[in-house]
C-alpha cells in the first residue's frame, strides 16, 4: 500500500470475518418476521408506491373520528362522540385494507420465491404462518383501535375536567379494545385465508375484495327474500353485520331498532362465535396450505 493510496483513504479489505457472536433461535425468527411483516403491511421499508394504499386507507379510517372530535369540540356536544358506530363507518376501508395488504404479506413471498428462503432458515412453516397472521391482525388494530383511541382522547379533551372525565369513561376502553380485536381478527382471517389460495398478488387482491362485496350482496339478497327465524340467522353470514352485532353486544347498546342487526335481535355471543369460527377455519386453511408446502 503506497502512502498516496493511504492518503486517499483506501478502504482496507479485512477479508472474511467469522461470526462468533450470539445466535438466536426460532423465537427470534418469528419475532423478526412479525416485525418485518407489520412494517410491510404499511409499505415501510419498501418503495413509495407500496406506501400509497395503506397510508390512504389509514387516513380514511381516522377521518370519521377526526371529524367527530372536531365537530364535538366546535359545538361542545360530547354526545356526538360515539364509539359503537365507528367501526361500521370504516368497514369498507377495513375490507379494502385486508384485500390490499393480506396478499402483500403472504402471496408475494410465494410469487417471488422468498418463501423458500424463509423455510430454509430455522423457521417452521407454521411459525411463518403465525407470524404473518399476527402481523396483519396487529396492522388492522392500528386501523380499528387507533381511531377509537383518538375518539376517546377527544372525549376527554372536550370534557371540562380531564380526570373526572377519565374516571367516568375508562371502562369503555374494554369494549373498544374487544371490538377492535374482534374486527381485526375477522378481517385478517378472511384476507389471509383467501390470499393463501392465490398464486399472484393481483388475483388475491381481487379475491378478497370480491369476497367482501359478493357476500355482502348475496347475504343482503337472501335477507330480503327470507323471513322469520331464517332471516334473523342470515345476518350471521354478512361480515360487516357480524362485526356490528359483536360491537353492539360489547358496548351493550340496543342496536338501532331499524338496523338489520337490531331487528335480528340475536344473542350477542352468536357474533363472537361466528368471529371465532371464521378465525378457526382460516387458521386451519392456512395450516393445511403451508403444512404440505414442501413435502
Amino acid at each position, binding site marked *: 500500500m503506497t502512502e498516496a493510496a493511504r492518503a486517499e483513504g483506501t478502504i482496507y479489505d479485512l477479508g472474511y470475518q467469522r461470526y462468533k457472536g450470539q445466535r438466536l433461535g426460532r423465537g427470534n425468527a418469528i419475532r423478526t418476521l412479525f416485525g418485518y411483516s407489520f412494517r410491510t403491511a404499511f409499505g415501510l421499508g419498501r418503495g413509495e408506491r407500496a406506501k400509497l394504499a395503506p397510508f390512504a386507507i389509514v387516513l380514511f379510517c381516522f377521518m370519521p373520528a377526526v371529524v367527530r372530535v372536531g365537530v364535538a369540540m366546535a359545538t361542545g356536544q360530547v354526545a356526538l362522540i360515539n364509539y359503537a358506530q365507528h367501526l361500521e363507518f370504516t368497514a369498507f376501508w377495513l375490507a379494502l385494507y385486508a384485500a390490499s395488504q393480506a396478499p402483500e404479506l403472504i402471496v408475494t413471498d410465494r410469487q*417471488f420465491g422468498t418463501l423458500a428462503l424463509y423455510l430454509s432458515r430455522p423457521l417452521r412453516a407454521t411459525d411463518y404462518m403465525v407470524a404473518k397472521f399476527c402481523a396483519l391482525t396487529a396492522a388492522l388494530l392500528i386501523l380499528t383501535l387507533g381511531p377509537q383511541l383518538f375518539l376517546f382522547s377527544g372525549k376527554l379533551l372536550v370534557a371540562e375536567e380531564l380526570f373526572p372525565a377519565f374516571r367516568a369513561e375508562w371502562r369503555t376502553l374494554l369494549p373498544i379494545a374487544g371490538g377492535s380485536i374482534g374486527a381485526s381478527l375477522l378481517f385478517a382471517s378472511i384476507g389471509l385465508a383467501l390470499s393463501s389460495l392465490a398464486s399472484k398478488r393481483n388475483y388475491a387482491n381481487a379475491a378478497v375484495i370480491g369476497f367482501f362485496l359478493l357476500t355482502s350482496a348475496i347475504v343482503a339478497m337472501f335477507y330480503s327474500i327470507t323471513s322469520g327465524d331464517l332471516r334473523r340467522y342470515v345476518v350471521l353470514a354478512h361480515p360487516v353485520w357480524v362485526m356490528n352485532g359483536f360491537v353492539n353486544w360489547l358496548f351493550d347498546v340496543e342496536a338501532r331498532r331499524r338496523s338489520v342487526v337490531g331487528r335480528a335481535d340475536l344473542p350477542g355471543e352468536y357474533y363472537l362465535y361466528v368471529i371465532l369460527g371464521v378465525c378457526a377455519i382460516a387458521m386451519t386453511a392456512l395450516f393445511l396450505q403451508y403444512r404440505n408446502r414442501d413435502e
Partner: protein
Amino acid sequence: MLSAQSLTKRYGSTTALDSFTVELAPGIIGLVGANGAGKSTFLRILLGLTRPTSGTVSVLGHDVQQHAMEVRALVGYLPEHDCLPPEVSGTDFVTHIGQISGLPFAAARERAAESLRHVGLHEERYRLIGSYSTGMKQRVKLAQAIVHDPRLLLLDEPTNGLDPEGRDEMLALVERTGREFGIAIIVTSHLLGEIERVCDFLVAIESGALQYAGPVSAFTQKTERLAVEIDDDVPAFAERLRAAGLDVDGSGRMLHVTVREGVYDTVRDIAAELGAPLARMELTRQRLEDLFRAGAGGFKS
C-alpha cells in the same frame, strides 16, 4: 461433514432419488447431473425441506430429520429459482434474512454490509432489488446465503441465467468463498466444465442414482476423449484402433478414442501404416448427458 445412507425419494411413481449413498468431507463439492437428475431434491432433503421416502442423512453431525432447525442454522442456501422480493433494497433484505437466521439486529446489519461487499455490491445495495440486473440479483442471493456465517453452503445452480462473463464472475466468487472464507460448499450445475473449474470433489448423479463420487481430477481422466478426424476409410481405421485395444466410437469422419498412456503414438502409427490422411487430433470432453447415456453405470467409481 455429510453422510447420506440409501436415500430414496419418490413422488408418486417417479423416483427422484434412488438409494443414494454418499460420504462427503469439507471442501468445494460439485454435484452434477442433467436437469431433473435429482440434484435439487437432494439439496432440499439436506435442508429438511423435503422428507425422504426412506434412508437417512446427517449434515454437520446432525440428523436432518430430527434436527432440521440446528442444521438450517449452520447452512446457507441459494435456491435455483428467483427468491428476492423486488420492492426491498438489497441491504434491507440481506439484513432481514440475517436476523431470521439468528443474528441480532446490529450484527445482521453489519454482516449484511460485509456480505454484500464480498459479492461485489457497493452503493447499489441501497437500491430496490427490482432494479437490479440478473447478475446483481444472483450476487444478492449469494450474500443472503453467507450473511449468517454458515459452515456449509448449498448453491443450487448459482450461474443460472447469467451470461458467460457473469458465470465467470460467479464461479470466481464461489471459489473464493470456499477457499478464502473456509466455508464448505456443495454447488450443483448441469455444466461439467463449471464444476471442474472450481471444485475439488465431484458427485455425479443421473436419474436419482449415484454415478460417481471422487476427486474431480480422476473424473476428468475418465471423461477425456481424443477426437480423431480422418479424410478416408474411417471404418478400417476404427477397426485397427479397436484391435490395438482402444475404445472407439464416432460417426462420419470423426472418431472418439479413450485417452490413455501412449494413445497419440498408437493413432499416429496406425495412420502411418494405413496411409490414412489424418486431418486432426484433438483432446475433447464428452458432454455430461452423452456420458450417462452412453455408459449407464459405466462411470461408477
